[in-house]
């Protein structure tokens, strides 16, 4: 029994050797969980273009529901000029891939208006995050909706630090407004290029253009859509440009164009399509879904 003291000492040392490192590990592990954790809720935020209401995507959504055989509940949001937000529809319980359409009372075109709309989008976005507590989402913008989303990403998203955007698809978004020029930059393009460093580094962007002829979809010049590369290329993780031709490729038909619906399913909703419908990509955009925290 006279050796008891060193035995107890040994026990004490053993406890410390286990306890202190585990303490450090714990801290590290929890921050890791917090940064890697992704909510099951993974909404797609849709923003229509100028002169369109929150019902702009109804045809697209009906089409998507029919093809994907999933409910995809829809929440429609309208932001008034004074910032008041009205909701119609709802996100159904258990639906983790809902669509949220955000439209604006003032839905006019023009540099000033687009900037205002981005600010309103931010108001609605913050309210949505607070209500539904998602921490990752994807975006779909049609026409000027893509500009509103881009401005929002550069100017306002940083204010909601723990929410990460994953994918952005813009359909016929005129990054250089209605200008056909490849050299002259309009105000909105200049602004987007100036702020491009603030774009989320892990974002994947798809810019889809439709063309009726070699230069335009009837409303937006192909050259203007092309200017998007000066904003996104080398700023975000992946930037892909896709051009769709054929039937239903006029500017306003694009969101429900069959080809584009397939692109939305494949790239934005990350569905696995049958090979005949799949857009051939040699290097599949790297999926970040798999890199979840490894559970023991």
């Amino acid at each position, binding site marked *: 029994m006279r050796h008891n003291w060193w035995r107890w000492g040994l026990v004490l040392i053993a406890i410390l050797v*286990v*306890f202190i*490192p*585990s*303490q*450090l*590990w*714990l*801290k590290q*592990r*929890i921050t890791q*969980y*917090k940064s890697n*954790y992704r*909510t*099951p809720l993974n909404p797609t935020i849709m923003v229509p273009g100028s002169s369109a209401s929150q019902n702009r995507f109804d045809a697209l959504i009906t089409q998507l529901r029919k093809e994907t055989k999933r409910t995809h509940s829809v929440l429609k949001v309208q932001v008034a000029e004074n910032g008041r937000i009205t909701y119609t529809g709802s996100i159904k319980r258990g639906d983790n891939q809902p669509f949220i359409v955000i439209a604006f009372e003032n839905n006019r075109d023009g540099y000033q208006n687009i900037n205002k709309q981005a600010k309103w989008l931010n108001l609605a976005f913050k309210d949505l995050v607070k209500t539904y*507590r998602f921490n990752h989402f994807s975006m779909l913008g049609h026409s000027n909706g893509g500009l509103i989303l881009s401005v929002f990403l550069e100017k306002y998203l940083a204010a909601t630090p723990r929410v990460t955007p994953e994918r952005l698809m813009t359909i016929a978004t005129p990054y250089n407004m209605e200008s056909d020029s490849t050299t002259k930059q309009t105000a909105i393009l200049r602004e987007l290029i100036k702020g491009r460093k603030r774009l989320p580094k892990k974002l994947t962007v798809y810019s889809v253009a439709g063309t009726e002829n070699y230069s335009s979809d009837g409303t937006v010049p192909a050259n203007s859509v092309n200017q998007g590369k000066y904003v996104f290329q080398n700023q975000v993780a992946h930037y892909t440009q896709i051009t769709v031709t054929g039937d239903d490729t006029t500017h306003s038909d694009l969101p429900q164009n069959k080809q584009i619906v397939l692109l939305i399913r494949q790239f934005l909703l990350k569905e696995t399509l049958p090979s005949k419908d799949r857009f051939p990509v040699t290097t599949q955009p790297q999926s970040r879904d798999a890199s979840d925290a*490894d*559970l*023991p």
Partner: protein
Amino acid sequence: MVGWLRELWRLNQRVGQWRAMRAVREALRVAYPFILVMAFVDVIGQGFLSKSGFFFQVYHVGSWLPGIDLWRQSLQAVSVVVNGLVAVMVAFTTGHYLAKIYRTEPLAVGMMSALAFLTLNVNYDALGQGGHGDTDANFLEVNLGPQGIFLAILVGLGVGWLASHLMRWLATWWLRHRQVTLSWTGRVAWTLTVVLGLTVAVGYGISWLVDGGINNLVYLALQTLNTNVGHQGLRILAVTAVSNCLWWLGLIGPIDVAGNSSVTSLQNLAYAVQHGSGWGAPYPVTLHTLSDAYANFGGAGMTLALLIAVWIGSRQASYRRVANQTFLPNLLNLNEPTLLGLPVLFNPILFIPFVMAPAVNIAIAWVAITWKLVPPIVYPVPRTTPGPLVAYLGTGGDWRALLLSSVCLVVSVLIYLPFVRLLNDEGSVDHAA
């Protein structure tokens, strides 16, 4: 109380006289050193080298140990061989000792029972598949490891008894009808034919009924019981108690279905990540938050508490020796060597605290969690985390959980102590090591 303990003691003595019981204890005694070595291999392999090991993560072993894959693979090789065949060894030793008691051919009977055990675990589904490629293993390998120990003991006892009697009967029959002694080869060969014929028939019959052999039948039943526990305290208590009873019988493992990755645990984790702590988690009372956190120190039956009770109260040199030898594996929740070495398995006296200690702890934890004295564990912890730290780390470092763990440990030691003292009176019958 004392009278009751005396009754228990008398029961223990009576059971200890049974031939079968003596054979089982001897068999476990022989298997113990092998399992002990394996436990240390597992301590290093699972605790320090495996990616999900506690010490691997805490000490960041991967970043400073060169050639980690080499270490892993070589340890795995040892582990696969010995850990994977523990049950076969137990079948052999049980048959061997029973034959010794019946004074027939111990070695031959031991081998027979090992073979019989193997025939029960042949992968009958793989046999008819022809030779194109590596379709399936020839044996149901999982059943040959620790979780096959119960079946191995049964087979060892059955074959030991049958073969011993058959041999003796054959010898006399031969002598009477042929007027010559039956040769040793003849006795063994005829007996082996009968035994294998029987076990193949049984094994094949069962493979028609269920995939995975006899063992799987039991495990399937248990798993359905386990996976549907829901979150009522009483059912969790019952399931854990049943599971511990089975551990005591040598049916090791089925409780493992509970764990970090069940749906409720993941939802709790999601909640904790969003809210910063486990307070108010959607599923505060589950098998994981009660049993894994507070009733599993050292593994099933709170064997860590048993070891401490042995240190405090046992005068049996063999017990103290086993306690010292198996402390480290127990700290990492690998308690097979303790169960086989002490032995806890088939020990009528230790059965009561083995089932009671976890049950009492679950009750304590349940009260503490429902009264909101401690938050439930929400963060995943490695399986090899030292028992008393599981709750502390799982709650994200809540000192109240650590306090509750210590309370649980002390209570369990107190539950074990009178039974360990009772075993002090055990005569010079040497059990272990």
